[in-house]
Structures are given as structure tokens and as C-alpha cells.
């Protein structure tokens, strides 16, 4: 708070104000002081003039009085009498009329004729006389002179009868009352100072007695300069000095005093008022500054708090600033920013949890919702929807077409959703429907509805697209209690469904274990060849046409170190789906050749057929490699037959046919495996350079005379023969089957009835002492 904006504003304002007040106060003080002094000086000047005027007037009055007195006939008579006693008495009498303190009569030659005071004689009389003569010559009529212990105002008049016969001098004592009178008229303190023979021994003053003593001491030290200051007991006086009269051995001065202290005291209320006004202004400004600062800092603090809340992700803060100033617009901007931030964050959150294409929740949100359903223990069904042919759609309609298809699809599904249900896009072609309060039966029903909805083709541009949708269902709590588990199991179910014609599969208990096994197998398969875990088994074939050469099909076996023997039906699809099949095929081809070489070296001639995967047929280098191996093991190519599936050729017919022709050019025989299960056409078959058909075991296993299979098998054999192809029937498990095949002139038979797959050594033993079959015996 101490460093707050509010405090700083207040501090700055107060400092400014203090400075202004201080300057003002000083200025007022200085101006007052100057004014007081000037005023005092003016008063002194005026006072001095008034004083002189008064003195002059007083002197003239006295002079006039003296004139009148001198003109009095009786007085003249007395003076004319020449009798000193008479004159003295006349002087006393007439002087008393005008309150004269001292009366002197001078002869015209300057000598004192008569004096009312006995002590005015000698030097004093001479001085007086000289002074009077000078006065007379100057035409002056008033004069001041210290006589003994008093200062006298002296005036003279000539006694004429009618010619001047004498000079009359009247002296009026200047005493305290005279000084007081002048003080009242001039409002100035007055000190009259008489000096005789360089001794200032006559003082008449209106000052206090103590002040007088003090001033006497001061005066003893220095003469008063004009306009000097005099300090008496804490009171300061401005002093003006007037020399009233001066002569040899005497001087009369008047000192006019103006008390600066008293004059300043008159201004004291001004100072007090200034101080009071300043204080009030200071307090008012302090209050104002605090209010102003508060009116700024409070909204700022409010905004800061709001910003803090925004920083913490709370966008619901309200700000209550009904102001039209900058802070108001700042607050508005703040609110706008807050709502903008909230909107953007909502958008970000939405983007983080939703699929940008469809706007559907993504996997995270789906899992979250599922998690909350689980937490609330609501029975929930997961419908995992996979689109099997999205890649095809993308290829044929372009990526935009695929997106459009997905959007249309999700739009179709929306009406299906009840409140609480949701649909999410997990990855590109996989979706998840979360159906709350749904058990497995209801889930299947809804899944059926989904399938009904999606079976109708989508209109993408001008093309009609049918989606290959597979649905896997997992149900909480039956199929799992964690969201991840449920999602995985639903996904597994979907994967399973994809392999089913109905394209719908409820999760089967343990499928996830199988799935884990698959994952493990896929992982371990890569190193199986290197670790020598693979081996070939050989299933003998029985020639029904009397061919003497030993025939067998080489079958791959995987001896897993922990899981034991893995059937090819399990790991071959995994290898095909993960792309490791080519390595396996290569191993099989080389191992088979090595075995043939070995047998050949021991005089055993065997014709081996190998299974070539679909993906091997898209490898154009295969024929070259086979040729190299044939050279390497010095084998005749006719010892080898490559079994291919119809669908393998379908994948990429051009390349596949090229590869097949290349193999055929090496001398390798080609056989169509699993004939009858695919969709291959006879036209296709005609184009392929094959020499053999292998009828799928599903036709052979339950072969009887009257079954539909019999017709197929029989006509296939006949058709093949017509096309110049030999026919192999696999899966022969019954003697009856073998008989039928023999009757229908099938060329070769293979199956458990003849022999199960054997290891190399067992095969050798089997060859050495072959069992006797009725067919062979028949033939």
C-alpha cells in the first residue's frame, strides 16, 4: 500500500502543495516584512515632516505670542524704564501669560540685560547671545537649545519703541507632555536628545523607562545612522534622526522610532490566516488527492483482480465500472478481452476434444464421457464402428470425397442418438457410439439400426458409395470396468466383426487375451527366423494318377520359445497384415530348396509345393531371387510348385501376372490354392500361367456321392482337365472321399487320411515305407 499508486499520487500532490504553500508563505512573509519596513519608513518620513511642521507651527505660535508680548505697551514701558528689577518683574509677569519657562532680555548689542533665571549667565549667556545674533541675522525665529537639564524651544521678539530697543527671548521647556503630544499626532515614538559639551545628558522620550536606558547604552556606542535599526528588549525599531539644532558644544536631535515589531504584529493575523488557509487547503487537497487516487487505483485494483482470475482461467469475473473515462473504456476492453479469451479457450478446448472435420467429440472426450458414466455406474454400451473401405473411397473420390462421406455418415447417425448418447470419432475411419443406460441386447438392436442406416449408398458427387462398416460392441459393466479396457475390447470386437459376414460382433470374453497373443506373436515373429524358431513340415501327397515321384507340401511351423508350436493359421495372417510375410516366404523358399538339395544328395527326389503369399506376388524381384537360389542349390525348377491364391492375383493383377510369368519362366510350376473359395473368374484363371488347381478342403472334407460338393468337385476336375490343368484335392480325411476322387480322376490327393504333416526325417521315413491306400491299390 505504501508503494501503491494511490500513495504516490497523494504524496506528489502533497509535496507540490507544500512547496506552493511554503513559497506562498515565504513570499507573504517577505512582502509583509518589506511592506512593514517601507510603511514604517514612510511613516517615519511623514512623521518627520509632521514633526518638523508641528515644531515649526509651535514655534511660530510661540513667536507670535512673544511678539504680542513684546508689543505690549506696559511691557515696553517697563523695558523703557531701564530698571532691571522692574524689567525682571515684567518679564516674570508677562512670561507667565504664555507659560514661558525662561525669559531673557538682550540689549541690542547682544548683552544680557535681564534674565529670569539666575543661572543663565556666563558661557551659556554668551552662547545664547551668539546664537541669537545668528538667528537674528538668519531671520529665524525658533531655536532649540539645551540649557542645564532641559531642552528649550526659544523664540525671540524685538521690543520696538517704535525703534528696536531690546530683544526678548522666551524659552519653552520641551518636556514629556510635549513629546506625548507629538507622539499622539504622529503615532511615532519620539526621543529628544540634548547634548551639551559632547555629553548626551538630556533625554526626553515617549519610550518606556527601561527602553530609554537601553537606548542610552546603544547611543553611547554609536551614533544613529539615518534609517538604522534599534533593538530594545526584543522590540525592533526603525529610527530616523533629525538634527534640530547644532552649534558649538551643543546639539539637539530628535529620534523618531517606529516599532517594526508592533507593525509586524499587525500582520500577524494575516500570517495566521495564511497558515490556517494553507492547512485547510492542505487537508482538503490531501482528501481530494486520496479520493482521486482512490478513484483511479480502486478500478485498477479491480481490473488487476479480474486479470488474476482470468489468468487462473476463470472467465466469469464481473467488473462493475460505470465510468465514461479511460478507465471505463479499459474496463470495457477488459470485459471484451475476457469474453474473447473465454470464447477462444472454449474453442481451443472444443478443438482439443473434438474432431475438426465432423465436430464430433474425439477419443479423449469419448473416454472422458465414458469415464464419467463409469464413475456414475451407468450401464453403457460402446458401439465401435469401423469403415473398412475408407481408403478405397478416398482413392476413388479423393480425400475431399472421403471427408464428405464421413460427414454424411455421421449426419445419418445423429437422429439415432438419444439424450445422453454421443458419437465420437476415434481415428480416421473409426467411430464410437456411447449409448448410456443400454445393455448388450439393446446395443445389438441399435447396432442393427446403424447398419440399416449405413447400408444405403452415400451420394458423393456423382458416385454412389457403399460403406463397409463393421460394428463391435462392448458393454459396461459386463465387458470391463475401465474406459480404456472397454474401448480396446470394443475395438477388438469391431476387428472381429470385420471378418464376419454380418459385420457385427459383441465382444467375446477372452478376445482381448487373444488379441494380446496376436500382438506378442507379431512382435516375436520378426526375430523368429533369426532365432531359428521356424521349421518346415512336409505333408505327403498321394498321386492318384500313378506318378511315381514323391510329392509333398511344405508347411511352415513356428516353435515359439514360450507359447510352443504356433499354427500357421494363426501367425500367417498376422505376418500378412504386418508386412513380415515376405521375409517368411523368402525363408521358406530357401529352406525348402536346402531340404531338397539335402534329400537329393541322399538320392531322394521330392516334388515340393510352397505357399506363396498374396503380398509376395507384388514383389517383381521374386523370380530373380528364386532363380539365384535354384542355381545356388543346383536344383531343377520342376521340383518346385508355388501355390498361390486367387485373391493374391486379384490384388494387383498386372504385377502379379508378371511375377507369375517370371516364375514360370524359371520352370517353377504354379498351382491355384484354395480353389473355389474366392471370387476368381474362369477368365482370370485362363490368363494365369498355372498348371494345377488345388480344390479347397471345404469341398473335400465331407465329400459324399450325393452332396452338392460332389458336383462341384467333379465338374471342377473335369473343367481343369479340359483346360489342361492337373487337380489336387486337399483335406482328404476319409477313405470314401479318396475313392470318389479316384473315380473322378483327380490327379493328387492330400490330407490327414494320407498323412498329417511330418518333419523332414519323418517324411523320409514315410517315403521309405509308405502306407498302402485303397486308391493306390485300386490304381
Amino acid at each position, binding site marked *: 500500500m505504501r508503494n501503491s499508486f494511490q500513495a504516490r499520487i497523494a504524496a506528489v500532490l502533497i509535496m507540490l502543495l507544500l512547496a506552493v504553500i511554503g513559497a506562498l508563505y515565504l513570499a507573504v512573509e517577505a512582502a509583509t516584512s518589506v511592506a512593514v519596513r517601507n510603511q514604517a519608513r514612510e511613516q517615519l518620513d511623514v512623521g518627520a515632516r509632521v514633526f518638523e511642521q508641528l515644531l515649526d507651527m509651535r514655534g511660530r505660535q510661540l513667536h507670535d505670542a512673544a511678539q504680542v508680548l513684546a508689543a505690549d*505697551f506696559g511691557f515696553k514701558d517697563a523695558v*523703557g524704564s531701564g530698571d532691571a528689577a522692574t524689567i525682571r518683574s515684567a518679564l516674570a509677569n508677562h512670561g507667565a501669560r504664555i507659560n514661558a519657562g525662561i525669559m531673557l532680555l538682550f540689549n541690542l548689542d547682544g548683552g544680557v540685560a535681564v534674565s529670569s533665571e539666575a543661572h543663565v549667565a556666563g558661557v551659556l549667556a554668551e552662547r545664547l547671545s551668539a546664537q541669537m545674533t545668528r538667528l537674528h541675522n538668519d531671520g529665524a525665529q525658533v531655536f532649540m537649545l539645551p540649557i542645564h537639564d532641559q531642552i528649550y524651544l526659544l523664540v525671540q521678539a524685538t521690543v*520696538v*519703541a*517704535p*525703534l528696536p*530697543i531690546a530683544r526678548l527671548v522666551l524659552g519653552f521647556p520641551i518636556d514629556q507632555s510635549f513629546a506625548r503630544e507629538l507622539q499622539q499626532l504622529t503615532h511615532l515614538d519620539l526621543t529628544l536628545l540634548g547634548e551639551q559639551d559632547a555629553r548626551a545628558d538630556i533625554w526626553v522620550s515617549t519610550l518606556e523607562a527601561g527602553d530609554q536606558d537601553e537606548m542610552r547604552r546603544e547611543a553611547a556606542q554609536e551614533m544613529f545612522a539615518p534609517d538604522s535599526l534599534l533593538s530594545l528588549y526584543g522590540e525592533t525599531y526603525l529610527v530616523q534622526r533629525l538634527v534640530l539644532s547644532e552649534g558649538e558644544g551643543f546639539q539637539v536631535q530628535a529620534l523618531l522610532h517606529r516599532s517594526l515589531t508592533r507593525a509586524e504584529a499587525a500582520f500577524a493575523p494575516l500570517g495566521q490566516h495564511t497558515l490556517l488557509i494553507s492547512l485547510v487547503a492542505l487537508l482538503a487537497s490531501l482528501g481530494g488527492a486520496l479520493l482521486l487516487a482512490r478513484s483511479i487505483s480502486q478500478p485498477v485494483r479491480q481490473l488487476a483482480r479480474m486479470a488474476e482470475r482470468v489468468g487462473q482461467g476463470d472467465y466469469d469475473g464481473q467488473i462493475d465500472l460505470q465510468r465514461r473515462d479511460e478507465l471505463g473504456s479499459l474496463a470495457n476492453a477488459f470485459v471484451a478481452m475476457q469474453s474473447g479469451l473465454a470464447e477462444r479457450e472454449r474453442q481451443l478446448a472444443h478443438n482439443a476434444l473434438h474432431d475438426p472435420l465432423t465436430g464430433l467429440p474425439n477419443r479423449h472426450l469419448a473416454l472422458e464421457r465414458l469415464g464419467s458414466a463409469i464413475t456414475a455406474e451407468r450401464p453403457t454400451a460402446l458401439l465401435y464402428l469401423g469403415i473398412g473401405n475408407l481408403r478405397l473411397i478416398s482413392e476413388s473420390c479423393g480425400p475431399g470425397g472421403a471427408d464428405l462421406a464421413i460427414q454424411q455418415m455421421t449426419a445419418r447417425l445423429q437422429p439415432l442418438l438419444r439424450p445422453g448418447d454421443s458419437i465420437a470419432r476415434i481415428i480416421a475411419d473409426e467411430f464410437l457410439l456411447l449409448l448410456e443406460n443400454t445393455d448388450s441386447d439393446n446395443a445389438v438392436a441399435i447396432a442393427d439400426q446403424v447398419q440399416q442406416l449405413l447400408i444405403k449408398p452415400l451420394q458423393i458427387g456423382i458416385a454412389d458409395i457403399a460403406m463397409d462398416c463393421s460394428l463391435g460392441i462392448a458393454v459396461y459393466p459386463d465387458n470391463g470396468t475401465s474406459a480404456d479396457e472397454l474401448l480396446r475390447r470394443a475395438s477388438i470386437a469391431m476387428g472381429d466383426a470385420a471378418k464376419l459376414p454380418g459385420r457385427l460382433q459383441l465382444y467375446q470374453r477372452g478376445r482381448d487375451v487373444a488379441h494380446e497373443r496376436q500382438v506378442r506373436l507379431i512382435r516375436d515373429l520378426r526375430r523368429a527366423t533369426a532365432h531359428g524358431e521356424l521349421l518346415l513340415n512336409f505333408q505327403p501327397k498321394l498321386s492318384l494318377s500313378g506318378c511315381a515321384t514323391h510329392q509333398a507340401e511344405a508347411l511352415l511351423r513356428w516353435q515359439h520359445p514360450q507359447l510352443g508350436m504356433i499354427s500357421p493359421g494363426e501367425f500367417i495372417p498376422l505376418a500378412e497384415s504386418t508386412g513380415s510375410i515376405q521375409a517368411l516366404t523368402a525363408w521358406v523358399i530357401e529352406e525348402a530348396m536346402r531340404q531338397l538339395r539335402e534329400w537329393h544328395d541322399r538320392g531322394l527326389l521330392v516334388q515340393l509345393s510352397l505357399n506363396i503369399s498374396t503380398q509376395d506376388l507384388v514383389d517383381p524381384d521374386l523370380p530373380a531371387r528364386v532363380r539365384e537360389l535354384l542355381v545356388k542349390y543346383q536344383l531343377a525348377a520342376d521340383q518346385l510348385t508355388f501355390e498361390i491364391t486367387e485373391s493374391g492375383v486379384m490384388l494387383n493383377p498386372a504385377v502379379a501376372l508378371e511375377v507369375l510369368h517370371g516364375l514360370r519362366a524359371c520352370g517353377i510350376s504354379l498351382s491355384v490354392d484354395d480353389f473355389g473359395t474366392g471370387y476368381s473368374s474362369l477368365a482370370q484363371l485362363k490368363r494365369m500361367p498355372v498348371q494345377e488347381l488345388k480344390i479347397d478342403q471345404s469341398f473335400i472334407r465331407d465329400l459324399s456321392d450325393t452332396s452338392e460338393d460332389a458336383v462341384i468337385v467333379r465338374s471342377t476336375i473335369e473343367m481343369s482337365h479340359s483346360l489342361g490343368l492337373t487337380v489336387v484335392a486337399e483335406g482328404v480325411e476319409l477313405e470314401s472321399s479318396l475313392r470318389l476322387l479316384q473315380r473322378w480322376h483327380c490327379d493328387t490327393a492330400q490330407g490327414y487320411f494320407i498323412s498329417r504333416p511330418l518333419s523332414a526325417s519323418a517324411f523320409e521315413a514315410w517315403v521309405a515305407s509308405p502306407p498302402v491306400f485303397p486308391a493306390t491299390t485300386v490304381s
Partner: protein
Amino acid sequence: MSSCSFYIAQVALLVCCLQASSLLAASLQAELVDERGQALENAVISLRGPLDEAASAAPAVMDQLAQQFVPNVLAVRTGAAVSFPNSDNIRHHVYSFSPAKRFELRLYQGTPSEPVVFDKPGVVVLGCNIHDWMVGYVYITDDPRFAVSDAQGVATLASLPAGRYAVTLWHPQTPQMLPQEAAPLTVGTEPIQQRYSLALQGTQAPAATPPASAFGDAFKKALRDAQ
């Protein structure tokens, strides 16, 4: 006014001439000047000769006319009685504190019954207690022959018997108002013209005219200021 006083002086001279007509005599025409040669009016010349007869002092008149003493200077022989007629229609209070003759004629109009006898030689300064500016002088001398100069500074003494005369001169402005001795004069039968110079004191004679009233001054001043 001056012609009037001149007339009176003529009358006085005529009286003197008539008295000396019995003797064979010459006349003296004295020209009285100050140190700068200016003609002096109201100067007195008196002669004392060998053949002075002890004639009694002739009575004289000091008139007050237009608030002035007329004549301004009156020369009389010791013991002369001078009457102080008042020709003004206001009263005067004539006094003298001079040692030669102290007297006082209290406020009066017309001619006081008793003339004042000046029995000691000297100068008597006359004043009026009411009108301070009025100054008159009475010169009292033991000399039998004297005259007062006119406006041209000329004083004439007729019928002077031949002989040697002591000459005394006086004027109100002589120092200390004391008479001054001049060179003796020898008179034959021929008329004499003689020039006499007097040493004077610088002091002015008192104002010979009444001052204007203070009110009149103030009024005139106010008028000037207003213009």
C-alpha cells in the same frame, strides 16, 4: 502730503530768516548726501557760531496726518514746546521712551491742550501705541541755527553772520543715532554752497507706510492662485 510738509518747512525757514534779518548775513545752502552720494532727506544740519544770541526756543508742531508723523524729522531747540495736533479722524497714542524726553499722550483727537516741552538735547523717537509703523523723530539741539533737508537733500540756512561755525550733522540712520561733527564752516558775506556727506548705518528705517491688511494679502494670494 509732501507738499504740505514742505509748505510747513517753508514757514519755519521764513520765521528763521525774519529773526536774522537785522544782521548783515550770508546764506548757506547745504547739500546733504550719504556715502554713496545719494541725496538724504530728513537730515539735520546745525551750526554753532560765535555770535549766537540766546534766543528762546520757538514752539514747533509735530502733526499726525494719514497715520504718519509730519514732519518725519522735527528739529527744535532745547526747551522748545512742541504741540502734537492730530489731523486724522482717528485717535493716536503718541509716546516716547527716549531718555531725552519720556512722555505719553494718551488716546486723543484734535490738539492736546498742553504742548510737550523738550528740555534736553538729544533724539526723541516718537511712536504711536496703536499704529506700530508710525515713527517720528524730534531732534533737540542746543545750536541756535539748524535746518532739515528736503527731498532733494538740500537744507538752507539764511542770514548767517560772518564768522566761523561748528557744523553738526544728524540723520535717523546715523550710527547709534548719534550726531556727527563736520568740518567747521567759515561764513563771509557771500552765500555758501556746501556739500556734506553722512556715514549711515545699514539698518532700514522702520516702514513708513501702513502695511496692507493680512486679509487683503490672503485674498490677493487666493486670486493669484486661482488664476
